[in-house]
């Protein structure tokens, strides 16, 4: 796959403060790419620079082969952006917001209505197209914003915290739209999020901390690398299993007749479990989560931040 976004040795300084410190990464065309990190890690700085509204201090950043600093209007044509804070005109209706957006992006006149209808249909706002944006709920505004971001058929859609502040159901819907988009239009999606579980669906993840990239891989590889498998076993008698674990030098926690231990790989647990299957009344195997990955890498829970 072709990298549609290329970032090489990008740095951004505000006076003495280094917000982004020499980062490099690429994003494949048609993929969903997630940027994770605590607040102040440099995610928004990077997105704003890619979106041509912030100047870089150093480095080379290109989108679809165009330099974001020197070929701004070419880059602007190729991207759609949903910012963290609303950028809708709250006095206008949903449809008017999209209509003016089409004028700004020079969408051919005969396609405007069709594209607006498609985008509103995708985010299920067709019934609300004549509603004034200011009267909509937060979730609807976000959906309207997503619809606007894609109405000009961008090559890359940037979503800065697209689901923050939304209720779980709306969050799930927004993800549904994002996946549908990526499939139907082969659009590249570049997003930042606070919710680690949401990043599971991404093809690649970059974790940033203190302006640096601390991890860059697929969710599976990251989980494999940074987390193990947790096994919870309920036994009739715990002694045989305990001695088996001690033999293998595996630390465990005892909780009544329940034992909790960690292994690097699930099949390793299978071996121990099958050896003691007579004494086991119940068991549960939990795979590592991205939350644990994040914790292992940054030493912080992302939601605490």
């Amino acid at each position, binding site marked *: 796959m072709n990298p549609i976004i290329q970032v090489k040795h990008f740095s951004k300084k505000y006076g003495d403060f280094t917000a982004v410190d020499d980062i490099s990464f690429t994003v494949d065309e048609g993929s969903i790419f997630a940027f994770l990190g605590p607040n102040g890690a440099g995610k928004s700085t990077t997105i704003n620079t890619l979106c041509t509204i912030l100047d870089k201090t150093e480095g080379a950043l290109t989108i679809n082969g165009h330099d974001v600093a020197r070929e*701004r209007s070419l880059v602007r044509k190729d991207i759609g*952006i949903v*910012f963290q*804070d*609303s*950028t809708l*005109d709250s006095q*206008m209706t949903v449809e008017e917001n999209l209509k003016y*957006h089409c004028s*700004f992006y020079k969408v051919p006149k005969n396609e405007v209505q069709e594209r607006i209808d498609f985008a509103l249909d995708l985010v299920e706002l067709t019934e609300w197209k004549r509603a004034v944006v200011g009267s909509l709920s937060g979730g609807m505004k976000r959906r309207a914003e997503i619809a606007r971001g894609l109405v000009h058929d961008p090559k890359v859609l940037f979503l800065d915290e697209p689901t923050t502040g939304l209720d779980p159901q709306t969050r799930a819907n927004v993800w549904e739209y994002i996946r549908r988009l990526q499939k139907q239009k082969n659009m590249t999606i570049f997003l930042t999020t606070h919710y680690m579980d949401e990043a599971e669906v991404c093809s690649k993840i970059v974790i940033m901390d203190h302006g640096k990239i601390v991890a860059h891989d697929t969710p599976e590889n990251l989980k494999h690398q940074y987390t193990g498998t947790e096994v919870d076993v309920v036994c009739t008698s715990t002694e045989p299993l305990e001695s088996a674990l001690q033999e293998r030098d595996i630390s465990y926690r005892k909780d009544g007749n329940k034992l909790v231990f960690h292994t690097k790989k699930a099949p390793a647990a299978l071996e121990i479990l099958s050896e003691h299957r007579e004494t086991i009344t119940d068991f549960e195997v939990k795979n590592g989560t991205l939350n644990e990955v994040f914790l292992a890498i940054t030493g912080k829970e992302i939601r605490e931040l």
Partner: protein
Amino acid sequence: MNPITAILQRNLLNYVRSKGRVLGALFMSMFMLVMFSFLMKSSMSGLDAPMNYLISGVIIMSVFQVSVNNSSDILSDISSGYMKEVLVAPIARTQISMGHILSGAVIATLQGVVTMIVGIVLGLRVNVLQILLLAAVMMVSAMAFSAIGLFLATVSRNSPAFQTISSMIMMPLTFVSGAYIPTTIIPVFLLPIVYLNPLTYTTSIFRYIALGAHTLTTEGLVEQGMAFSIGGFVITPLMGLAITVLIGSFFFVLCVRKFNRADFSTIKVAAGMRGGGAPARR
């Protein structure tokens, strides 16, 4: 739709929809007209057509104020976040500036025309040709004023600062423009400001048309404060209009440069303001 037209249309639509603004603006122009034309009539007894002299001054002043004040629309765009949507769009920064300048100018001109109609009821004597010429001058000067206003708005970054800065600049410029106080009686040490003030020239061409003063000689125009003799060099009303356009273009370039600077930290500041409530629309 061309991006300039799109920005213009959107701003006008928002203006028309906020009925309070439209009514407030109309009330203000009428109030000014009635106040000035009746209160100051007596002090202008030496003139041939005192109503034409006064009302034309009031009209151009309201055009000036409305066009500068409407520039603060861009501040509500900044605080509401909409400015970001415009800035990331593939629109030339000249088009963004032009769209905003045009919308301020169109609103100001429309308001000026309404004021002119009320003025006719109150005793302004003008023919159709004069009305058309006056409207054209209003539009041209309103664009220059809007450019100044837009620049002030982008510099001041938030509504309270803009209010302070704009009134700080508007008040003195109004008083030394000749609209209310004839330039001929303004003290000599203030004359440099009079000559640098774009309002001086718009007032002069406006009066020149409203009074039908093309029959006057150059000396006559200078005497009446419609032309200005600087060390023997006479600035005619038409030259004055050209100077206004020049000053307007200068500020237009400044606005474009302001929008071109990619580091739009102003937007960050404004986004932070949202928690405290968006600045009130007048």
